[in-house]
Structures are given as C-alpha cells and as structure tokens.
C-alpha cells in the first residue's frame, strides 16, 4: 500500500504553502483496460454519461463507428476503432480513450489555479470546475489530448474516475458496466497482477508483443491498457508511444517561473539600488543654470 500521497495536491501551490495534507493514507487505485477483450460496445461511454449527468449532442455518422467522434466536455470517454490488416489477418483494434490519470499529470502541472486540478491520494486526478477559470492550460499540458473545454461555461471537463463512487466504495461506472470485464478497477498493484496474467495468456495465443501500457514518461498512469501490440501503441488510434509532458510545458511551468521571479527581484533591486546610488536626474541642466 502506497501511502506517500497527499490528499489534495494542488498544482498551484508551492512548498511554502502546501495543500492540505488530509486523508493521505490511501491505497493507490487503477483502472485496467484490456483492449484484447474489449468489444467496443460503448457501454462505458453510456454509463459514464448516465452517472455523471451529461449528454453530448446527437451527432452524425461519418462512416465509422466512432460516436461521439472525439472526447469532449460532454464526452469524457469514447471508443476509438482502427482496422489493421497485417499478413492477411484483419484486426479491429478498439480502444477506450479518456483520462489516463497520470501519476505526473501534465494538466495539473499546467494549471494556474490553486485547487482547480487536484490529485487525490489514491491517484485520481480531478478537475474542480467550480474553480476552473477556463484558461485551457491543462489542455496544453496533457500529453494525451484529453481535457476538453465547454464553450458555454468555459470550464474544462474530463473523466474523474467517478471519484464520488470510488470514495463511496464503488468502482467507476465504466468499469462496473463493462460487459466483458475489459475494464477492471482495483488497487494498482492488483491491476498490474491481473495485467501480467492476461499478458501471459495472450503470449500463449501468439501475441508475442502483448504488454502493459503504463507509460513511465508520465510517472505511470492510473488508467492502464493491456495491448496485443504493446510495441506499437500507435496502432490503437494513435496512443502515444512515449508520452511525456512537453518540454515546452515543463519549461514554462518549471524553470521559467523562478527565472522570471528572479528577474523581477533583480530588476526591482537594481532600480532601487540605482536610484539610491545615483539619485534623480534633474529636470534642468544644473551646469547650464550656473552659466546663466
């Protein structure tokens, strides 16, 4: 049981003023999405929408099964379908897309508002829309292109892993409803154990590259995938191979802030020292006045 957790780790705070350290002794949780037994039925989409009381607009068919076509403020999870034909064998690779609940959440790092994006001690990353200003930095921060802004209230929305259910002792609604148990929920340790079993079974069926997707670049995730082709995650509708928080975001939210702060300090100090040392430049030329 991992306990080195904050309950609410606010992105927008600093070591001098840490976030409240309550409810820190919690098990780390994870959702394991086994794409190899996912039937792409969209029950998870519907259950998510139903539980979380949102409804996207009824859209259109554009020649594929993907509906809604993309994640949105009212579509926190969507199924993505990809037909791959290799060596005469067709595979229909289906992936449930949504927030990965990164251990190092790019969204949270980017967020400027204290408490607007929080990471719970169990690993769930949640956006608190009441505090969200709609700046969209999290959208830039996310390596998976997950958070989406609602143009009406301008807040940003994404999967919260049904944090309300989890704190009431239930699995997220997507996991509970999944007809084939392709979505499992539990402690991260248990999910890794299950994944290992599944991977061994897949290897015995000839999927030599089966593996777990728990990318290190974001410190691991609390939503993990079992893939038949873990060597090529991009086959699964462009799942990034080595997701990391963009260096631009890291610099922007990392080194650049103290640098700027130091710059401000230096400038204030320089100005003050200069003024004290040199004094004001008079309006008139004293020497000329003397001449006069």
């Amino acid at each position, binding site marked *: 049981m991992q306990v080195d957790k904050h309950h609410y780790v606010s*992105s*927008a*705070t*600093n070591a001098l*003023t840490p976030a409240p350290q309550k409810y820190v002794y919690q098990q780390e949780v994870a959702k394991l999405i086994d794409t190899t037994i996912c039937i792409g039925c969209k029950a998870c989409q519907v259950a998510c929408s139903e539980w979380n009381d949102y409804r996207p607009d009824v859209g259109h068919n554009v020649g594929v099964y993907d509906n809604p076509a993309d994640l949105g403020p009212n579509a926190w999870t969507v199924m993505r379908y990809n037909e791959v034909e290799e060596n005469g064998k067709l595979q229909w690779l289906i992936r449930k897309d949504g927030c990965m609940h990164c251990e190092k959440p790019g969204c949270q790092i980017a*967020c*400027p*508002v*204290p408490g607007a994006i929080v990471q719970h001690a169990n690993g769930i990353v949640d956006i608190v829309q009441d*505090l969200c*200003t*709609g*700046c*969209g*930095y999290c*959208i*830039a921060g*996310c390596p998976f*292109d997950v958070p989406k*802004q*609602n*143009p009406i209230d*301008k807040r940003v929305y994404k999967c919260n892993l049904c944090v309300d259910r989890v704190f009431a002792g239930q699995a997220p609604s997507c996991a509970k409803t999944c007809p084939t148990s392709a979505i499992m929920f539990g402690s991260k340790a248990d999910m890794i154990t299950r994944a290992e079993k599944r991977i061994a079974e897949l290897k015995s069926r000839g999927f030599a590259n089966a593996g777990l997707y728990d990318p290190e670049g974001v410190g691991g995730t609390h939503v993990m995938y079992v893939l038949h082709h873990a060597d090529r995650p991009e086959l699964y509708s462009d799942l990034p191979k080595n997701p990391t928080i*963009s260096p*631009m*975001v890291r*610099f*922007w939210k990392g080194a*650049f*802030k103290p640098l*700027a*702060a130091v*710059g*401000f300090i230096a*400038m204030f100090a320089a*100005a003050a020292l*200069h*003024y004290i040392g*040199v*004094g*004001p*430049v*008079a*309006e*008139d*030329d004293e020497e*000329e*006045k003397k001449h006069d």
Partner: protein
Amino acid sequence: MTNQKDVVVRHPYPVRVAHWVTVLGFFFVTVSGLGFFFPSLHGLLGFLGTPQLAQFLHPVFGLVMVAGLIVLLFRNAPHCLPEKDDSKWFKHIPDILKGNEHHVVEVGHYNPGQKMLFWKIMGLTAIMLVSGLIAWRPYFAHLFPVPLLRLALLVHSMCGILMMFMIFVHIYMGFWYKGTLRGMTQGTVSRSWAKKHHPRWLRALATKGNKNT
C-alpha cells in the same frame, strides 16, 4: 512654476490618449497575466472581479493595449528610426546610467534606448497578439493543434515577462528623469528639460517653428 513660454509640446493630445489607453490595457493585462503565470499570485485575478472574469477580460484588455499601441506606432515610428549617432549613445551607457547622458551625447526626439524600447514593445506586442489569439479560449484555441498551443502559451508568457521588464524600465526612467512625466500627462515639458535631454529635438523644433513663422 514654469510659464507657458518655458514649455514645449512633447506629446500631442492623441498620443497622450493612446499612451494612457495602452497603460490601462497593460495594467489589467499585467495584473491578470501575473495571476495566470504565478499560481501563487492567483489572488490577483480577483482584481478583475472573479478569476473567470479575469480569464475573459485578459485578452480584451490585451486588445485595448494593442489598439493604443497601433496609434502610437503610426504617430511615433518616424521619431524612432535609427540614426547614425545611436552607436555613440550605446557606447556611453555606463555614463548614461550615472545620469550623465547630457554630457556625452546630444539626443534627438528620442534617445536610442527609447527607440529600441519602442520597437521591442511593438515587436513583442505583435508576437503576443498572435500567440494570444492562438491561446484565446474558448474562441480560437480549439482551432489549433496542441503542440502549437503549447508553443503559443510559452512564447506568450515569455514575451509577457519581457514586456513587463521593459515597461518597468520605461516607468523607472520616467520616474528617474524628473520632469519627464508631465510630457505624458500635460503633454508639455520644460524647455530646459528638453534642452538638457533632447537638445537636437528642441533645436529641430525651433527650426521648424521659425520656418512656420
């Protein structure tokens, strides 16, 4: 008090209005910008009502600032063209910082430092305008790919910080050079100030005035 005879018009009325419009925009944009840049300064966003309102107003004030600067660009660009003596000024910066500018160079309408600041502000504003539009939510940002968005946000914040530095220098200079401020409030400066700090400008003004009379 200096009487009317002792003063010359430094900034005509439209320029002064444009400047202060720019200042207004800059002020709010900076306060909110700092609030967005430093999470610990989140409280600054309250200055514009609520953080959400700040999010809405920040780009609006940015555009206010741009509007002021456009006027200033057209009015002041001719005064900010490089001249051949400019290099001399730069060589003497240490002296200038000691308050001896008038001893080392004869400055025209604007000194090269001011000119450089002018163009930097114009340049930075242009960059911030473009990057700001790219990042502007919820209206434009979704039209651009996320990597571009990241670049825009980084560039926008870097330019913003730089801009603040420059404006700080600009304000400090106005504060340090006594008699400067009224040039932007009342529009006039004393002849002696002009003679001391911008002698070539004053002479040019006189020539022009003689010609006119």
